[in-house]
């Protein structure tokens, strides 16, 4: 697993030395409390940082430098987890061993330095053209969710279910918040991020650990910062009555999304039991939802459940003929009732545990997945390993599944479907 080094207060390095890959991955994550307005600023900032630097002031010059380094990858992204917002810089270059006489890795550090510490800034403001362009890009990214009806329906369901709550806040913020960004506010956001965010740096590859620590101290001299106390998630009052919402657009399929509440979330001691329960319910192709909604009734191509563990939400999604909404809802809820009545089998349980194991062990085969999984689970356990989690899953019983299922409570039935006459 990863070896941890504290570089400064609030700045940590995690290294995993492995000969498995032909490349080296370096990822930097900046973490701050999640806030709608800040999310927009940071989303645009991430784009602007990827675009150009002082040394490479245009997209073209920046990309040429990366291409010369054998197509080295460098991009930024934003995401959220619980009440935290993250800006991530992802880079990956081919191992030096494949190209005699080249010093790709060293040059990668210089590029990262240029992106992080020497952005395309003058007089404490980013280039106005770049800022405006990337504001437009982030705005369009927010808007384009509308074009993907499954994503749109999921977004709407969460907004109705958890208004103004981290569960429904987008990592890109809102169109309005994006439009209010100025060059100056963006630079202030950059300074805030550089000085106050928690920073985790990950390196995975066939590298020399001491050398990495030396390089990072030289090229990425982050200052110490106080550990930001993470925002607590606001309390949620769950109503006893079920909210039914139907919305219409020009489309053909009915997008049925059901939202459920559970008090068991990521930090709850029963978290691993709920992971298994969700798997039996609808996580896989052997699960109750797939076998009954799809295979038995032929009502859907997809019918799945997922566990948004950080927010204590279980949700079910299915693409159906909208006229069959009532039947589909009934069938989905029957599967949950079956779980609550203890009508699951040892076979379903062992299939689910086997596939959960397969997915976490498979994650070891991608450097990015290793980083993302460790980054999440280290909050529970600094010495996280897949084996420990697998042990926990294997100890889950049918009785546990029944008890977990009983905590799952339907809050909302949301259907997005077509208008009567679909214009083509």
């Amino acid at each position, binding site marked *: 697993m990863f070896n941890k080094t504290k570089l400064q207060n609030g700045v940590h390095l995690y290294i995993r030395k492995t*000969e*498995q*890959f*032909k*490349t080296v991955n370096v990822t930097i994550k900046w973490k701050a409390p999640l806030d709608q307005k800040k999310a927009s600023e940071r989303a645009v900032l991430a784009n602007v940082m990827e675009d150009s630097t002082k040394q490479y002031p*245009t*997209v*073209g010059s920046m*990309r*040429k430098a*990366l*291409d*010369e*380094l*054998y*197509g*080295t*990858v460098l991009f930024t992204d934003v995401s959220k987890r619980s009440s935290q917002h993250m800006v991530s810089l992802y880079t*990956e*270059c*081919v191992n030096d061993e494949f190209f005699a006489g080249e010093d790709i890795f060293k040059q990668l550090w210089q590029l990262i330095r240029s992106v992080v510490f020497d952005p395309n800034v003058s007089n404490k403001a980013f280039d106005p053209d770049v800022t405006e*362009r990337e504001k*437009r*890009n982030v705005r*369009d*990214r927010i*808007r*384009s969710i*509308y*074009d*993907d*009806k499954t994503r749109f329906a999921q977004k709407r369901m969460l907004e109705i279910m958890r208004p103004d709550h981290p569960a429904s806040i987008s990592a890109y913020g809102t169109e309005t918040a994006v439009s209010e960004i100025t060059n100056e506010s963006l630079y202030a956001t950059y300074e805030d991020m550089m000085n106050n965010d928690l920073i985790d740096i990950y390196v995975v590859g066939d590298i020399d650990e001491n050398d990495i620590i030396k390089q990072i101290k030289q090229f990425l001299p982050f200052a110490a910062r106080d550990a930001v106390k993470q925002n607590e998630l606001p309390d949620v009052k769950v109503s006893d009555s079920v909210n039914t919402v139907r919305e219409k657009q*020009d489309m*053909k*399929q009915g997008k049925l999304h059901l939202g459920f509440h559970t008090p068991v979330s990521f930090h709850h001691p029963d978290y691993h039991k709920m992971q298994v329960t969700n798997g039996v319910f609808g996580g*896989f*192709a*052997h699960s109750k939802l*797939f076998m009954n909604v799809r295979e038995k009734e*032929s*009502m*859907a*191509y997809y019918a799945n459940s997922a566990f948004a563990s950080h927010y204590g939400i279980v949700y079910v999604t299915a*693409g159906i*003929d909208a006229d069959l909404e009532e039947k589909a809802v009934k069938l989905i809820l029957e599967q949950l009732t079956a779980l609550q009545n203890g009508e699951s089998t040892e*076979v379903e349980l062992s*299939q*689910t545990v*086997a596939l959960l*194991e*397969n*997915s976490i*062990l*498979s994650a*070891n*085969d*991608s*450097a990015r997945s290793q980083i993302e999984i460790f980054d999440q689970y280290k909050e529970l356990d600094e010495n996280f390993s897949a084996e420990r989690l697998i042990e926990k899953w294997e100890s889950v019983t049918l009785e546990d599944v029944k008890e977990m299922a009983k905590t799952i409570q339907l809050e909302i039935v949301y259907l997005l479907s077509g208008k009567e006459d679909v*214009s*083509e």
Partner: protein
Amino acid sequence: MKEVNFDQLQEKIYTETLDNGLKVVILPKRGFSKTFVTFTTKYGSIDRTFKPHGKDELITVPDGIAHFLEHKMFEKEDGDVFQKFSLNGASANAYTTFGRTAYLFSATNKLKENTKILLDFVQQPYFTKQTVDKEKGIIAQEITMYDDQPDWRLYFGTIENLYENHPVKIDIAGTVESIQDITAEHLYTCYETFYHPSNMLLFIVGAVKPEEMMEFIKEDQAKKSFDKPEAIERQFPTESTEVDVSERTLTMDVSKPKLNIGMKCNKVDLQGQEMLEAELSANLVLDSLFGRTSAFYEKANAEGLVDESFSYEFTMEEGYGFAMVGSDTDEPERLEKLIRHTIKDAKSNWPVLEEDLNRMRRKKIGQFMRSLNSIEFIANQYTRYEFNEMNLFDVVPTLEKLSMDKLKEAFAMFSDDNSYTIFKVMPPKTQ
């Protein structure tokens, strides 16, 4: 069993063609936890007119049948195959493309048991009227799901513009109407024609011991009986090099217009090394004309004509091929003009310099090395290359020697004026 070393890439493959004609390729990967196995037939949505196994007359089957068959392979008399894979901790799936149908699983455990399940379920068909009819509802929902995806409609709409007769223009899953005509007999006919081991490839990559695995597969195959391999006779309609329709627009409920330019390839009979050179060259041409270091991109980006959805690609298979360039854009007319101008300009004034070629070559080599970290990439691509008589591991040496002339030849394949088509997805006009 044959061993082939690729020293430069530090990879080694083990291959053998079994007595029944099945080609098996094994690639062990150092340090990997999982094994990824694909079992692929050279049979896809375009194979709709052919001589059935043992027959002399050509038949044409309903659209969407290869994909339908893929779905139906998973259901057996004793239940659903997913159930068996899950018990053994394997995550299974399948997909159908224009020219291939692949069945696959990945597992970190019980490799032999899972491989056995894969071989058995693909080699033992079971279709009844009841199971076939039951599937129609599921696939109808799958088709409807794709109907609502504007990017899929944009892609397919462009192909429909490009081709007049070739079945590449038919949606892989068929239509809700066409699948109603599919019967169990059709499925058996297609199965018997295209699922003979000699038309298939088994690829195993990841955590695997090659000798042991090859023995296991040979034993399994020796126990099963197959007819003698027969050459498969497919028929394709003739197709001109000109596009069928030069421009079409579809209205959908989208937030921003979508533009896609298609350019039809006039060379569609390449295979082997010639094909590899042509497709790598075409990719380099598109990179230099439209990539993020190009003059086109600088202008389109500065003027806000493209956004993060901007992309381009080149597709080449036996019988068809095309280049595509597209983006969501508020100004489809201006973007279209700029793309057209870029193509036209390159014909009279070749824009790629030797230093550009060298830089892009380095980029592509690096990209390829990086993709060898993905065992899914290796299995899927190796199979595709093999079916086109190319070798995936020739990519780097071929890139190293590509000359400017090859790029110019590749550009000439898709830059004719009459090979150019426009497809747009537009939001409804505001009232």
